[in-house]
């Protein structure tokens, strides 16, 4: 048993629901007790969907267990089909139904429905949401396309190749309840159009089963969200010889690399386009106003896709110091570990938010880039935070256009990561006139005044002696308090480490400044 307070990912059947809800003309019959119907609110409340998810729950109860839950499933299959008349039925069970072993998928396959039925096995006791989404997408695509493989002739032949045709690509991975998928799709589509690549099918977001049948018509695939689409892309590559683009276009550098990778597959020279089109991020980052961003200590925790992208942007495009990186995506942990290693860090791969909280409070970063969990943690610790990944809350599904991908996405990222921070001169003034009764470090940055004070964290928490053997003398302690609180914890730890290393058992005013000189920050 795993002790869980909050979870980053829902159970696998919620992933299946995300795929079903992203698609059109597909209905998902979920063998599940009534409580599981809560999942509807993820879609209708968090993402403000205006329709109920296309999901019917069998909502069996204890009294049904004594009789025949399989009968309940069989009845529900017919009733659900009759009411919704979908083009494809997905059938699966949630954690409790998995234990009953009613095999709803097999029952549905035998129900003689006039449409394809895709049974799902969702492994509720070992897997989670993103895996469930990935499996569902893969099994659906496979079920629809496996027959085409048998019919499809050699793609190289035919009249198509003789006349000039725009290369076509599929965008695979974007889904409802993904992070800014709605806008990323628009951004990437326009990016591709600009270099002369036509988007063939976007899936699962807003795709119908008929659209999925057209997937093999594309020349290559673009895996926009490996958590959901990597398995499918790999299968399509094996089955239809469709190569796929692996770079995720989040950030200026990654977007350029993405375009180059696309260009290579499409046979298009993209360098001129990259030269002439970019984000405002590089200039904003170079402008003198941004010098105060230099070396800001940043902690990153997100799904693998957004965590690895954030590390690159933070380090190379904004000049931050990445002091910690991690992810809850165990399936993609290798990618995160690789990036961490390049940053000389150990990746924190966990789905226990208490571990993440511990890491953040120990590292005491100046900015946290995370999920809504990290936003809560950062709020409690009085650290600035921007949300960069799911799980996210309703405010992270904004009304305005705010992609993360492409050059416009980089603009959005610059704004939303810099916004929570104290502005440069403001930070200096705080350091200089700490004792001003109105303008001190317990005041929020002036442009965030409406959001309340920053330091709602008890003073003891950051000012705690990390080492009991070392005594601070009164003068040194008082001086320490003149350091703005967001770096005070670090100053204290550095000074104590310096004292220990120098074999001191007490810290004087001089020790404090010796340590400052030693660590030069």
């Amino acid at each position, binding site marked *: *048993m*795993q*002790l*869980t*307070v*909050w*979870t980053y*990912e*829902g*159970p696998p*059947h*919620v992933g299946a629901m995300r795929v079903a809800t992203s698609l059109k003309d597909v209905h998902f019959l979920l063998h599940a*007790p*009534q*409580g*599981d*119907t*809560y*999942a*509807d*609110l*993820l*879609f*209708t*409340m968090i993402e*403000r*969907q*205006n*329709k*109920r998810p296309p999901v*019917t*729950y*069998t*909502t*069996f*109860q*204890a*009294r049904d*267990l004594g009789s025949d839950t399989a009968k309940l499933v069989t009845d*529900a299959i017919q009733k659900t089909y009759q*009411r919704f008349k979908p083009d494809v039925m997905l059938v699966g069970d*949630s*954690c*409790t139904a998995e*234990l*009953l072993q009613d095999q709803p998928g097999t029952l549905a396959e035998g129900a003689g429905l006039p449409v394809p039925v895709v049974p799902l096995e969702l492994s*509720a*006791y*070992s897997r*989670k949401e993103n895996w469930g989404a990935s499996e569902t997408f893969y099994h659906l695509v496979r079920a629809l396309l496996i027959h085409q493989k048998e019919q499809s002739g050699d793609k190289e032949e035919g009249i198509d190749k003789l006349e000039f045709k725009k290369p076509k690509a599929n965008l695979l991975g974007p889904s409802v309840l993904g992070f800014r998928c709605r806008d990323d799709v628009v951004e990437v589509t326009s990016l591709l159009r600009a270099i002369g690549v036509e988007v063939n099918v976007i899936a699962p977001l807003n795709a119908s089963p008929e659209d999925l049948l057209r997937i093999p018509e594309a020349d290559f695939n673009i895996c926009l969200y490996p958590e959901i689409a990597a398995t499918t892309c790999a299968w399509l590559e094996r089955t239809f010889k469709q190569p796929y683009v692996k770079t995720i276009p989040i950030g200026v550098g990654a977007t350029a690399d993405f375009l180059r990778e696309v260009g290579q597959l499409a046979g298009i020279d993209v360098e001129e386009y990259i030269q002439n089109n970019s984000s405002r991020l590089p200039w904003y980052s170079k402008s003198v106003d941004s010098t105060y961003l230099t070396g800001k200590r940043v902690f990153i925790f997100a799904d693998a896709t957004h965590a690895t992208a954030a590390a690159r942007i933070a380090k190379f495009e904004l000049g931050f110091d990445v002091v910690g990186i991690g992810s809850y995506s165990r399936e993609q942990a290798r990618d995160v570990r690789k990036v961490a290693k390049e940053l000389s860090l150990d990746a924190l791969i966990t789905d226990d938010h208490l571990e993440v909280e511990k890491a953040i409070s120990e590292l005491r970063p100046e900015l946290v880039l995370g999920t*809504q*969990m990290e936003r*809560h943690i950062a*709020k*409690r610790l009085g650290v600035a935070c921007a949300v960069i990944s799911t799980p996210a*809350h309703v405010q992270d599904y904004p009304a305005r256009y705010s992609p993360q991908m492409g050059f416009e996405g980089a603009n959005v990222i610059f704004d939303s990561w810099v916004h929570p921070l104290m502005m440069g001169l403001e930070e200096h003034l705080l350091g200089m006139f700490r004792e001003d009764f109105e303008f001190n470090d317990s005041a929020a940055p002036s442009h965030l005044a409406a959001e309340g004070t920053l330091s709602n964290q008890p003073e003891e928490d950051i000012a705690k002696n990390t080492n009991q053997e070392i005594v601070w003398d009164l003068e040194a302690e008082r001086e320490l308090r003149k350091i703005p609180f967001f770096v005070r914890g670090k100053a204290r730890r550095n000074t104590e480490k310096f004292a220990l290393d120098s074999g001191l058992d007490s810290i004087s005013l001089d020790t404090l400044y010796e340590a400052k000189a030693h660590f030069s920050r």
Partner: protein
Amino acid sequence: MNTAATAFNPACPDNTSIKVDSPTLTEIPVRQERGERAVFCGLTSIIWLHRKIQDAFFLVVGSRTCAHLIQSAAGVMIFAEPRFATAVLEDKDLAGIADCNDEIDRVVERVLQRRPNIKTFFLVSSCPSEVIKLDLGNSAQRLNKIYQGRVRFADYSGSGIETTFTQGEDNCLKSLVEELPNTESKEKNLIIAGTIADVVEDQFKRIFEQLGVENVSFLPARNEEQMPKVGDNTYVLLAQPYLGETTRSLLKRGAKLIQAPFPFGAEGTLEWLRSVAKVWDIPEDKFESVISIPLARARRALTHYQDKLAGKSITFLPDSQLEIPLARFLSRECEMKLKEVGVPFFDRQIIEAEMNLLPADVTLTEGQSLDDQLDRVREDKPDLTVCGLGIANPLEAEDLRTKWSIELMFTPIQGFDQAGDLAELFARPLIRESRLEC
């Protein structure tokens, strides 16, 4: 799931329409539906219970779905480290590789290390733990021995195969009742059962003091020390309409149930208090003098919203069991027209005093068949539909105004001084509609 109603009514076997002897009930036909339901399971009540009982911890033994349900329903708004958690079952627990007893002990120990001040520890069973027949009663007994009274362990079911939404609280309180100390006192004492906001509790306490009703206690209390005692002179007054099992447990311990409408609105609160005054033999003039001022205040507060609600129609989808008392309040005190009132299940013993106050032409539904019910909503086109979070926005998108039922659980709505707030909750969507131009 009609077990609550049938437990005390053997003449009413499960699966049939309720047979009734009350004249009003026979006049009101009850539609029974046995289809797809859209309702939270009993685990959801942990969201308010864990804040109400300040020295209790709730450990759900269940799946990732259970953990995800609680945090989604709570909206992760309450991120202050909660006094609940889920022990998520994994493959190795199901395969019997890991001994579930050892695993529970280990998880409990970890929780108590982090939270040494916990006095009551609830082990809450879930759909999967019940399907694999994990006996948390045994675990509670075993842990009671291990911790030797330093922490008291209790178990109850919050599973969706046994309970809906507020029934979780019913089961939780029932498990508390079994452990309540006995009192031999010859003096009458009153237990007010059902979680209500602290501020409302304090208001009721003051009114009872003024009436001269002593020995009033609340279930659940804010901490273990203040939990009520129960004996032959204990009377039970329900502040929430979903406590059938808790009530029957209290009756078994010798307590007597005071039948009353629930304290929603001016009238409901008045009758609720009056029923106690009768049992306590409080003179009529004293009763009048104590309640006249808050009653007048409640009626005055209601006048702000009555014209906005009067004549408007409302449908309740089955959700929290609050549907019948709220429908009564809205029809009698706000002159709303009731279209359909759905409840997850009827518990006659608990709701009796309310039934006589409902208009005779109300359509009552027990249970649910979601899509059919939504079809009726579309046909009826009520001005307001009270429903769960999953359904509200889709109905709004069909141009039907809605009120989230969970808000009624998280807002102080009982008592005289909340009567206006309660009406306002229903008026707000209508006021909003009238303000927006597009």
